[in-house]
């Protein structure tokens, strides 16, 4: 770094030296100067500066070439010039167009003051009251230097434009006087025009030269800036720049700039140029801005198509376009929204479609499942229908066999088993009776080879409560399948219905539940047949069972009653005897008292003896020994028994019988007991001289026996209770007689009742009888 720094100036120096030696003859440097007050004036003014530079920068000879605005541009475009000195407006134009760049800015002098900025002043005669502000120039006659004059016209133009005043349209007149600007002041003073445009410091110079008296002229909208500048009506802009052009060598430009900056204010060159020397380059942005607004200089094209102008001239069109644009924007937004919605909707639609697709897929699958199961169902139903059809036929046949009265029991069983075997294409149908330890064959239909094997197989089963199916694989029945069904008779499995079938037929192992149910039904039908067959015997057995139960009840009741009847007198006797003994032990010697006790005790014992006597009869009655007996014989025996008794009581007993040969099934002794009881009661009830009538009537179904007395009859309170045990109206009665009578009659399927007649009471019982044919059986 250090070495570079040190070398660089050396190099520079070397180049400079070689340059100077190479151009030893002298290089001409052209400085273009804008001459706004005529060529002569300009040359006179700036040639000293050229000399100053030539003198200061060896090897170069600076020459001043003066131009007006147009020719200057031509020269710059042709690259004829190395440096230019022109007004800020043109400089900015060249900056933009030809790459000119300012190096220093002129410092002017005015009233002994030094400044590097200037503006324009719009002046009017001091006595013009109607002209105070810049805006007042509207519709007035204005005078300026020229349309291209920067300080003499353009600066004011900008201000007016901002005030909305077009110099072209809004002034009553615009006259360009050209240089010098003194003419404008003169015209204003003379009243040729209402106001004039001059550069700052012109008025002050004229006053200083004595061409104008102070107070004769006033400045409109005078501005005072912080920089000390004479009165002006416009903004201030930087003074003229001294600029290099694009092709100008930089080192030369530097030399020029350095020397110009170094120019003292009292230098002859400065004096000649009427300036205070040069200062560092100022910022020309304000100039750019001004030119852009006025659409002049580099912005002349821009100015032509300025939005404002276009707007002003084509307001309607623009409005329409704007409207169209607005509409378009709105449309675009709307479209965009619609588009967004569309995208959203499309996405939703896509989702829906996906969902739908899935749904359809799942439903299709479901449907297929349903279809599958439906097909399965149909097959099963067809199978079931077939089975039902077959079963229906079988059931009809079964029914026909069951209700056929021409076939006897054995035939029916044979036919039923044959039906089952044939219908299901079995080889053998077998009916076994279930014994204690074995199965004995009752009926066989079909092949007889399997009887022993089936029996053995059935024996191996724990229970046969429901359908049993043994597949042929088990090898029990010569490689055949076996079906076994319980035959229930009176709630007990007493037989087993079995079917043996072939494998190749295939039907037996595939027998449906319906078929099995049918065979089970058949088994139960066989059971019913057997029950029916046993019905008669069973009925009688049943009755006997009932009878014995009834008798047991009667006897149990009797025993209880008898115990009581015995206990009472025995207890009494015991009390008397026990008490008597006690008295005697106590040494009581009152024999009368003891006597009473002993008599009472004897009374009790006697009563007990009575009961015992009755008991014998009852026990006798309790022994069941049923047989056929002739009813009239029984009556005869009773009458015989009671004959003496009746004659003692002077009561006559009459027996009226319609059928002397009627036979009864039952216990003759018990029936006699009943008769005995009834007749004895009648004897006791009937007063001496009275009559007892025994009437026997027979119908086809029953025999009716009545015992009529001539006693006091049965009181209404007594009613049916006369048959209750221990009901008695007699002093010494036990009250068991009628109770036992009823029990006996009921055991013989008969009934007994009592009514009052005119003479007394009538006790009647009915017993069922059997015909002669049945009696023989």
């Amino acid at each position, binding site marked *: 770094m250090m070495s570079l720094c040190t070398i660089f100036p050396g190099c520079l120096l070397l180049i400079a030296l070689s340059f100077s030696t190479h151009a030893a003859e002298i290089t001409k440097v052209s400085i273009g100067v804008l001459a706004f007050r005529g060529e002569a004036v300009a040359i006179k003014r700036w040639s000293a500066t050229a000399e100053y530079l030539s003198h200061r920068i060896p090897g170069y000879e600076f020459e001043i070439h003066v131009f007006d605005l147009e020719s200057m541009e031509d020269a710059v475009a042709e690259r004829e010039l190395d440096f230019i000195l022109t007004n800020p407006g043109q400089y900015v134009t060249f900056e933009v167009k030809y790459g000119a760049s300012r190096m220093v800015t002129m410092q002017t002098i005015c009233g002994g003051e030094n400044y590097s900025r200037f503006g324009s002043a719009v002046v009017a005669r001091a006595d013009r009251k109607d002209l105070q502000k810049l805006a007042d120039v509207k519709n007035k006659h204005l005078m300026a230097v020229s349309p291209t004059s920067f300080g003499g016209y353009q600066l004011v133009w900008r201000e007016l434009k901002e005030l909305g005043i077009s110099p072209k349209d809004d002034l009553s007149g615009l006259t360009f006087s050209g240089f010098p600007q003194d003419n404008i002041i003169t015209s204003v003073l003379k009243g040729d025009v209402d106001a004039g445009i001059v550069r700052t410091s012109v008025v002050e110079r004229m006053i200083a030269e004595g061409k104008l008296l102070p107070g004769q002229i006033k400045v409109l909208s005078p501005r005072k800036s912080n920089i000390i500048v004479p009165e002006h009506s416009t903004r201030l802009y930087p003074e003229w720049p001294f600029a290099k052009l694009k092709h100008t060598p930089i080192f030369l430009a530097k030399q020029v700039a350095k020397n110009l900056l170094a120019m003292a204010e009292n230098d002859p060159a400065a004096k000649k140029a009427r300036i205070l020397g040069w200062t560092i380059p100022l910022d020309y942005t304000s100039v750019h801005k001004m030119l852009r607004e006025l659409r002049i200089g580099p912005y002349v094209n821009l100015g032509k198509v300025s939005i404002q102008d276009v707007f002003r001239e084509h307001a309607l069109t623009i409005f329409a376009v704007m409207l169209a644009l607005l509409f378009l924007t709105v449309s675009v937004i709307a479209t965009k929204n619609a588009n967004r919605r569309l995208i959203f909707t499309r996405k939703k639609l896509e989702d829906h479609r996906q969902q739908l697709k899935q749904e359809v897929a799942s439903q299709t699958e479901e449907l297929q499942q349903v279809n599958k199961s439906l097909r399965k169902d149909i097959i099963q139903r067809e199978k079931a229908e077939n089975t039902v059809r077959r079963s229906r036929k079988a059931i009809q046949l079964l029914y026909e066999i069951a209700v056929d009265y021409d076939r006897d029991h054995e035939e029916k069983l044979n036919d039923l088993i044959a039906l089952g075997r044939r219908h299901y294409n079995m080889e053998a149908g077998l009916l076994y009776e279930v014994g204690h330890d074995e199965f004995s064959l009752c009926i066989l239909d079909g092949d007889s080879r399997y009887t022993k094997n089936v029996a053995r197989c059935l024996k191996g089963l724990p229970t046969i409560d429901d359908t049993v199916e043994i597949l042929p694989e088990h090898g029990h029945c010569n490689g055949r399948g076996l079906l076994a069904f319980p035959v229930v008779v009176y709630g007990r499995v007493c037989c087993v219905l079995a079917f043996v079938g072939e494998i190749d037929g295939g039907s037996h192992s595939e027998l449906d539940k319906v078929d099995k149910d049918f065979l089970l039904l058949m088994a139960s039908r066989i059971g019913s047949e057997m029950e029916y067959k046993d019905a008669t015997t069973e009925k009688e057995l049943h009755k006997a069972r009932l009878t014995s139960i009834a008798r047991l009840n009667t006897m149990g009741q009797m025993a*209880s009653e008898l*115990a*009581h009847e*015995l*206990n*009472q*007198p*025995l*207890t*009494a*006797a*015991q*009390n*008397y*005897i*026990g*008490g008597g003994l*006690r*008295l005697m032990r*106590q040494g009581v010697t009152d024999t009368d008292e003891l006597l*009473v*006790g002993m008599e*009472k*005790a004897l*009374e*009790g014992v006697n*009563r007990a003896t009575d009961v015992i006597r009755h008991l014998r009869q009852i026990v006798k009655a309790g022994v069941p020994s049923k047989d056929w007996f002739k009813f009239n014989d029984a009556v005869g025996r009773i009458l015989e028994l009671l004959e003496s008794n009746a004659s003692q009581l002077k009561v006559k007993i009459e027996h009226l019988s319609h059928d002397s040969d009627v036979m009864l099934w039952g216990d003759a002794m018990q029936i006699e007991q009943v008769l005995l009881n009834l007749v004895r009661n009648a004897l006791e009830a009937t007063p001496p001289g009275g009559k007892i009538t025994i009437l026997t009537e027979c119908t086809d179904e029953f025999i009716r026996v009545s015992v009529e007395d001539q006693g006091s009859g049965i009181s209404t309170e007594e009613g049916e209770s006369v048959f209750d045990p221990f009901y008695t109206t007699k002093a010494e009665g036990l009250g068991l007689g009628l109770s036992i009578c009823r029990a006996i009659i009921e055991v013989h399927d008969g009934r007994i009742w009592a009514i009052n007649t005119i003479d007394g009471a009538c006790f009647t019982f009915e017993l069922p009888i059997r015909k002669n044919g049945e009696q023989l059986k």
Partner: protein
Amino acid sequence: MSPVVYCVDDDLMVLESLQWLLQTIKLETQIFDDSVVFLDNYLPDVAACIILDVRMPEINGMDLHLRIKEVDPEVPVIIVTGHADVKMAVRAMKEGAFDFIEKPYAEQQMLERVQAAIQSRHTSGDDKYNESNLIKKFDNLTAREKQVLEQVLKDQSNKLIAFELGISKKTVEFHRGNLMTKLDVSTVAELVRLSIRAGMDPEY
């Protein structure tokens, strides 16, 4: 005022004999052969003891007992029956009867029980059957005898007890006899009464 014993039985013969017996030990007796009449005329706190027969028309002894207890809960009642079963005995004792005696009875037993009943009316204790004595008696029973007793109290027949315990009927009869002797009772009714007093709770 000497204690009055009330006797109710529909059998006048028995009633009179009982009266005669009780007079031999100088007990004043009132007899009723109609339970309804008795109930209508009953005055609480007058009777020293009441003897009821179970078998009576209109209101039987068991029901009459309950009715008496309603109006006179403290009076000792001896229930007498000719056809006692365990069920009836258990019921009577549970319903608060003083004793349950089966007919026919030894007159000595009856007199003792009546005297004990009269005694209990004044002193709440019963010396012969006081609890420590009772428990001692029951403790003397063998395990098998206790098992048999339990079954007897359930009103099981000897045959059924034999089946339940897996022993022969003869053995049951033997145990039953033994336990009756050990407990000093002669009737099932007495057995039930003692068992209840000893804290057993037979179910029926």
